[in-house]
């Protein structure tokens, strides 16, 4: 330790000052790191898309669908599924599979709603009846207004 010719400085008075300087330096570096990282993280997340937020949409026209078929319509930025059942009744549901986000389709041969991605099945009320989907599809209200088929999001849904 005490090599000849080396002067040992008294350690005690230096330490607090050094610690203080280290604290300032470390704190400063940390603060600049945060001030770089925060905008970076915020930048990674895109601003929310301007969803026009309409709860009502015209999904199609009367006579457009044959009985026992379905079609996809745009509901804001998401797809919806409009079905004319074999009994001639309109049904409208969200077309986004609750499993992993695929777009479902109506299967006339099964009289059910089918997701091709993982073989999920829903009945005409949107209830998940087989396969991996964990939740039912959101069902919408359908009205026929003149020639137009109007779909409403249900209140409180």
């Amino acid at each position: 330790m005490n090599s000849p010719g080396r002067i040992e400085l008294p350690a005690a008075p230096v330490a607090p000052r050094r610690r203080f300087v280290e604290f300032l330096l470390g704190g400063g570096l940390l603060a600049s790191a945060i001030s770089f990282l925060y905008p970076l993280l915020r930048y990674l997340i895109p601003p929310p898309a301007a969803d026009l937020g309409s709860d009502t949409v015209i999904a199609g026209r009367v006579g457009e669908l044959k009985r026992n078929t379905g079609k996809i319509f745009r509901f804001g930025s998401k797809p919806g599924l409009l079905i004319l059942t074999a009994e001639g009744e309109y049904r409208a549901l969200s077309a986004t599979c609750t499993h992993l986000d695929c777009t479902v389709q109506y299967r006339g041969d099964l009289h059910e709603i089918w997701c091709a991605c993982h073989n999920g099945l829903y009945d005409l009320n949107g209830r998940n009846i087989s396969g991996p989907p964990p939740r039912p599809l959101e069902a919408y209200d359908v009205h026929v207004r003149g020639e137009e088929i109007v779909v409403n999001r249900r209140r409180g849904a």
Partner: protein
Amino acid sequence: MLARVRDWLDQRFGWAELIAPLKKKTVPSHRFSYWYFLGGITLFLFLIQVGTGILLLLYYRASANEAFESVQYIMTQVQFGWLVRSIHSWAANLMILTAFLHMFSVLFLRAYRKPRELTWVSGMVLLVLSLGFGFSGYLLPWNTLAFFATKVGTEVAGQVPLVGRWLVIFLRGGEEVTGATLTRFFGFHVALLPGITTIFLALHLLLVQRFGISVPPSVERERQAPGRGAHEIHFFPNFLLRELMAWYVALGVLGVLAALLPWELGTKADPFAPAPAGIKPEWYFMFMFQTLKMLPAKIWFIDGELLGVLIFAAAGLLWLLLPFFDPEGRGRAQHWILGAGIFALTYIAGMTAYAYMAK
């Protein structure tokens, strides 16, 4: 002329000194040696990806309105465009295949033992990066198959607890898979992933160079028997020429596949069309895809997906840390690792085969 260039370099950089270790470098040669070519072939295919990728960049346009059309243009109008794209797709798939084979051969020949733990870890990082390349590149032609595969793949990321939703929005560039997702995936595919991969590839090769190539324990034991010595060959030129022959064979296989079975383009993605039947991810994600497909919606009180994702994440982490359970390559841990390797190989192969056979 060549001698003068060498002299010039030698006077400035000490060229002779620099390449001296290369001249002395030797590589073990034994009956399992051929398995060790898989790493080199993977590297070769990666280099092909860099080259063909740069060529595709000359014509590709990364936007939802133009991506499909630009790939169509490459394949129908640009001279040999179909070949360049076909090579890029085929080499990508072969590279994943050889990387997997390389990984399993390293596991079964126990090349991960001390001191090569970090070589294994860096290799695993490279494998994950390769899967990232595959996943992001799959979307770029903006066809129906890729669109829904990306929807499902990114939604799986959403199952991660706590940060899942955030992760999905980060990956998709919004709530849905749109042109914003294409822009991001393009950036990941041509800038972010190549950059990170270069670093890990350099590290991986540096470690391989530092520790030399492993000799399997069984061969090592045989060599300790009296009258048997270690058999080594010179890296330069003996090993290098063999390696180049392996690359040449790989190039031949790649050329035949790319020319005779050109990669298809499919139909343009339509976000407002139902998912068509037969939707599937790339084959190397199939075993995970099939597992998720078979899990019921609820297991006990946990979502089937969540459980599946958690199990795969835990298995992946254990796999990454595998060498640390058996640093010496002997004892009971070794049998567990061998068992885990056989199980993983069987599971991946079995589930992949099942996914293609079952509807």
